[in-house]
């Protein structure tokens, strides 16, 4: 099995082959052999010689969560970055999951860079989503009052004069 994980700016390429309770891991750092045991669902013990690591793992869609050695790591399986890959330069995305409080523009409206287009709220914090450049509103995808996930496209901006 091969995976490319995205962790912040870092891209991690790994390949693993399983043979019973043995797992051979290849990374850019080299090859390591582990013996593994599943203690409970998502709860693994990885042994390399006498050294051992308890790993707790959870996943949701392309998201991967890992606790190891007292630290939590958050990664994304790279091929699943569709939500973001689909976003174009003119798209304004929700920076976090939250509620859309107000939409200040309508399709066809001319907007200027830094003009507030959408007001969002999450956990008592209000955030203005502003235009990233001058342009014309091509499409409004969000509705006031709607709950949206992080990364959701709220407004699509077209080129000036070509909505």
């Amino acid at each position, binding site marked *: *099995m091969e*995976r490319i*994980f995205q*962790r*912040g*700016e*870092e891209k*991690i390429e*790994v390949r*693993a082959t*399983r043979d019973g309770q043995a797992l051979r*891991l290849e*990374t850019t*750092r080299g090859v*390591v052999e*582990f013996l*593994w045991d*599943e203690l409970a*669902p*998502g709860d*693994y013990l*990885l042994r*390399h010689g006498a050294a051992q*690591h308890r*790993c*707790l*793992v*959870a*996943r*949701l*869609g*392309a998201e991967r*969560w*890992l*606790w*190891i*050695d*007292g*630290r*939590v*790591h*958050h990664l994304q*399986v790279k*091929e*699943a970055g569709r*939500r973001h890959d689909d976003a174009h330069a003119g798209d304004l995305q929700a*920076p*976090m*999951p*939250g*509620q859309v409080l107000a939409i200040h523009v309508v399709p066809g409206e001319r907007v200027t860079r830094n003009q507030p287009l959408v007001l969002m*709220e*999450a*956990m*008592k*914090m209000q955030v203005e989503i502003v235009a990233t450049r001058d342009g014309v509103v091509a499409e409004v995808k969000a509705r006031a009052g709607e*709950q949206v*996930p992080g*990364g*959701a496209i709220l407004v699509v901006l077209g080129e000036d004069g070509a909505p």
Partner: protein
Amino acid sequence: MFRKVLVANRGEIAIRVQRALRELGIRTVAVYSEADARAPHVSEADEAYLLGAPEPAASYLNHSRLIDVARESGCDAVHPGYGFLSENAAFARRCAEAGVVFIGPSPQAIEDMGSKLRARALMVQAGVPVVPGTEAAAGALGPLERAARKLGYPVLVKAAAGGGGKGMRIVNAPAELERALALCRGEAEKAFGDGTLYLEKYLERPRHVELQVFADEAGDTVHLFERECSIQRRHQKIVEEAPSPALSPALRERMGAAAVAAARAVGYRGAGTVEFMLDATGTFYFLEMNTRLQVEHPITEMVTGLDLVRLQIEVASGARLPDGVRHAQLRGHAMECRVYAEDPEHGFLPASGRLLRLRVPSGPGVRVDAALREDMDVSIHYDPLLAKVVTYGHDRAECLQRMRRALAEFVILGIPTNLAFLQSILAHDAFVRGELTTHFIAEHLQDWRADAGTVHDAGLAALLLHDLVVGKPATAAVDGGMPPSPWESLRDWRS
């Protein structure tokens, strides 16, 4: 003693209060918003009542509905927790009118301490040191310029009705004063409907040290030592400890006396906190009084062996302060770390999501106050505090080692948290040496990154192994943060 008490709050503090009530044999009544129907504070209570829509104004801040529930359910008293209605004099008054005890100070004391200028004037009268500053500063620029020069730059322009950093500006030089006044007045008028401003000397690199006070109906007033809360980001406390590494017994004595004087000046009853700024020379100034239980009250409980919530309830029901409180002893060292649902990869914005996996630290000297359950959704409607990790040790070094161990044990998967950031604070040399100021994070951790360090090969192996074992394609059907269907969850469990 009360028979039944309504806890007008949610999350960890509601559970904390319910525990004290249960220990006293008092029935617990929970209230909840539509977003919280399955929240832990609801399922733990003896009775639960729906308040309304998720927005706080319709639910946890809804005076009328809360009073109705208290009456209908036959409660003797209401415990407001912290936040929400805990410092709302109008609500405290309505409780009294409805014949329900508000577990907290009098409405008058809440109001006296709620206005910054009035509190300042009362403190001056009571001989409590306040930050050098002016009275309400209306009108001509000339006298203000002279006042600012007399205080010495930098000075702080503050809104009398202010809070949350609004209507506040640091002025470093006389030339900046006029513009700062105009900006603050505009902000204050907009935010608070009151443009009244005043000037204060700006203290550079102070510590935030607060004193816990307690008073009974007879006016007997004591302090229960201090908490150092200098580690803050965006005016939000994140690490607190007791005692403060900066206080000598003599300074503790003086600050304690000032805190008691402050509480007496407003006829305070119950639990309260007097906040001070402390400079490097050991000079301290009154900042404000919080007329409620503090988030960080557990560290005081650890170093005194007292249960502050139980005491609140007993004192509100008319009991005198017991001898154990009047002669409380400070023993050992305690620390609290606040674990928030925040995304360090995105500027520490509040985060939400499903709690996919949870393991709470335990063992010697560790206490965790939380309202968490695996598979619960952390919503975007309320404060992002997930848990408070509190550790105790016979001295600061042991306490700190325990905190590091406890945070390393804490597993929260599915929701971004500030755990790694907390670990970096505790690992910093200046923190270890106890050199704390309210500018600690700005000075030492400005360039902190969430994704520093590498992921151990064993961890990468576990991630791939999990996909092999669970046996689904990398991105499955679940996309864009949609929750999995029950069928998928079931398959996960069985494989």
